[in-house]
């Protein structure tokens, strides 16, 4: 399919301020998208509340609005600029949430404007945990087993359940982080008894905890004709339970067999096709290599932090290609601007390894150094090398912290054990220190 000529003026929604938890990676995606659209002769209007981004440079967009990222602002811009299309998948979660809000408030009925790229219904399904789980079950793709307890069924159901350890959430904390991990029937019974005595109208949502197993991501692009390719995969050094933004990430995966690699690739393509993504997205898996089971954790129906990483690691212009798809092109028609003589329809094969390490601000702020499901890092470094060791140490050297310069931790053996056991920014140094103290790799790994 060639360029859709009905697209004349596109509003690109930016990601807003750079805060802890959302780094500047969306600037990169957003700017690439704007330039890619302008290349097609399309007028680009940009909304971003952050004046300090490269996106708001006049060479990036035709018109720039530095205003709050809100429904009101978008409505005003649509009316004033006569916008015909909105691209909401380049500004992180902020822009995606705004798109969902625009839909709820009926903006798409009120004005002759539409979403381009991944359809709003797809965004809705991917973002809504329950809808997403239902779709996964429909297409026979595994998600973490879950159950729902009410005052009526819990007495009967608890003895039958075998999904420990599990995360329990109350219906009023859903979506939030108020989950608790339970490991036994007894713990669950006690909690349920107590809970339903007080809240007999509420439900308890249970989900198998995937904590501790391997976390893998695939970056996927799908076009308007349904062609689907995977740009690369990313293996998290830290297991499930540590946010991918907080994890050391290696591309391409180093410990997966061909079978595992392609089982997950097949699954990624199936899921992304069922969702109906048009453009780039990211899918996360939890893989248990011992039982050969995997679970789909979630899909980000947009360019994400991982897209920026995948783009840099593989050299594939993800945001650019995905904007071209948004305006009608297919992978068979888009030329790869880096090689200039090949098409965007290929899967990069790397003859190097990249290692990403998050950069935490713990040298500047006195806060708890433990890392987990919440993001504390403020940026990241990437090392590229012909071997894992080379890439890894290049990344460490780029961190420029006290520890990364000395590589030694002057602590007791006891303290060292604890540092290896608990995820924190110091864990990698603790591992290096342990190996320098001639602890065996088996011993370090068993911790």
């Amino acid at each position, binding site marked *: 399919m060639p360029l859709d000529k009905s697209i004349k003026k596109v509003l690109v929604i930016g990601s807003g301020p750079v805060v802890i938890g959302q780094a500047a990676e969306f600037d990169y995606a957003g700017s690439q998208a704007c330039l890619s659209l302008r290349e097609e002769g399309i007028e680009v209007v940009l909304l971003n509340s952050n004046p300090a981004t490269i996106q708001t440079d006049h060479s990036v967009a035709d018109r720039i609005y530095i205003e709050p990222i809100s429904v009101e602002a978008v409505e005003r811009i649509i009316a004033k600029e006569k916008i015909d299309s909105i691209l909401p998948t380049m500004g992180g979660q902020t822009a995606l949430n705004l798109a969902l809000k625009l839909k709820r408030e009926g903006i798409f009925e009120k004005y002759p404007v539409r979403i381009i790229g991944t359809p709003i219904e797809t965004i809705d399904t991917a973002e809504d945990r329950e809808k997403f789980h239902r779709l996964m079950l429909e297409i026979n793709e595994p998600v973490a087993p879950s159950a729902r307890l009410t005052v009526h069924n819990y007495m009967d159901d608890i003895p039958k359940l075998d999904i420990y350890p599990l995360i329990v959430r109350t219906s009023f904390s859903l979506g939030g982080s108020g989950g608790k991990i339970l490991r036994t029937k007894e713990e669950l019974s006690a909690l349920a008894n107590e809970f339903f005595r007080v809240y007999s109208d509420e439900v308890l949502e249970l989900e198998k905890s995937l904590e501790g197993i391997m976390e893998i991501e695939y970056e996927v692009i799908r076009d308007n004709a349904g*062609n689907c390719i995977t740009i690369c995969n990313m293996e998290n050094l830290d297991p499930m339970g540590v946010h991918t933004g907080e994890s050391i990430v290696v591309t391409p995966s*180093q410990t997966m067999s061909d079978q595992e690699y392609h089982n997950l690739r097949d699954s990624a393509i199936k899921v992304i096709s069922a969702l109906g993504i048009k453009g780039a997205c990211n899918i996360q898996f939890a893989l248990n290599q011992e039982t050969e089971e995997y679970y789909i954790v979630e899909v980000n129906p947009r360019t994400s932090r991982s897209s920026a990483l995948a783009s840099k690691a593989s050299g594939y212009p993800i945001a650019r290609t995905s904007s071209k798809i948004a305006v009608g092109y297919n992978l*068979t028609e888009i030329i790869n601007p880096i090689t200039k003589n090949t*098409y965007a329809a*290929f899967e990069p*094969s*790397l003859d190097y390894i990249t290692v990403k390490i998050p950069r935490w601000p713990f040298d500047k702020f006195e806060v708890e150094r433990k890392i987990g499901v919440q993001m504390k890092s403020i940026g990241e470094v990437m090392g590229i090398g012909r*071997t894992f060791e080379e890439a890894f140490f290049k990344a460490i050297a780029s961190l420029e912290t006290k520890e990364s310069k000395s590589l030694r931790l002057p602590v007791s053996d006891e303290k060292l054990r604890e540092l290896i056991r608990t995820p924190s920014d110091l864990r990698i140094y603790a591992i290096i220190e342990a190996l320098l103290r001639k602890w065996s790799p088996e011993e370090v790994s068993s911790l």
Partner: protein
Amino acid sequence: MNRYLILEDGTVLKGVAFGYAGDSYGEIVFTTSMTGYLESITDPSYRNQILTFASPTVANYPLRMGLFESDSVQVAGVVARDAHAKLVIDQSWLYFNQLLEEHKVPGIDLVDTRLLVRKIREKGVMRAYMSSSPEVPGEFPDPMDEDVVAKVSCSEPYHVKGESGHRVLFIDVGAKKSLVKELSMLADLYVVPYNSDFDRIEYDYDSIFISNGPGDPSHQSLSKVADFIRKRSVDTHIYGVCLGHQLISLALGGKTMKMKFGHRGSNHAVTDGKRIFITTHNHGYAVDRDSLENTGLMVTQWDINDGSVEMVRHEEKPIFSVQYHPEASPGPRDAKWFFEDIRKDLGVR
């Protein structure tokens, strides 16, 4: 211990020896597959070739996580940048070395494979020695002059039972195990050697399949297979993969040619003009598109980047074949529809 890779153009690369402690000779090629090292080195299509892994880490996961594509290690040698990721968890490195020793296949590690790949891309495939001495030998005979298929084709016919009621004569010119497995799910197979007396086969079949395999499709040792295909093309369903695809094209009047450095890897995009499939390739020869004129064969798929012929289909007869590997292993499974097409063509429910 040092080991040297000596190329036809005089280049000598030094590395560290592993695997079998002996010399070797072959055509030097590279693969861009990032996974599936065991599947690659046991693929019979790599016979008489020294395989360079463009991806730096080899043997980075345990051997038991891979699949054997034949009963032996087929490559003439393994060249790697970083094959020394010594896996202590289950002695994988030891097993990998033992495997190479058993099958008399030497390896060289710590080679600048990026430089090597660039050289091959620039100058095309070359002939190379793997040796304990850096001395450049005077002669570099063509490893493809040999009858390579003889080394990989089965020696006796065998039967793979299938339930569909259809019976396929499977000509083994170096078949991968996963290809036999895929086909056996569609029909009863009678697998025969490449040098069989095809007119005297005591098996009642309704279609013919020609497998993948190594070497030059126009090698005279294969002319009997091509003659047989030509003869049966008037009244039988015929399918093929890789070398089989090339033999079908030759049999019907087309020509094949040697490619500069070929396609080897799991990331090649093939298109039919609308759809794209990411597929596993392992071919150093290709069917010449222009030569297919007036043969009845149409090019229905091609490589999106260099236009090489990747699939042909006869305009009237039930004959079609692909150049790439729909059975994957290693690689993506985008082209599994090929077996579905055969299922439909056979009329299997």
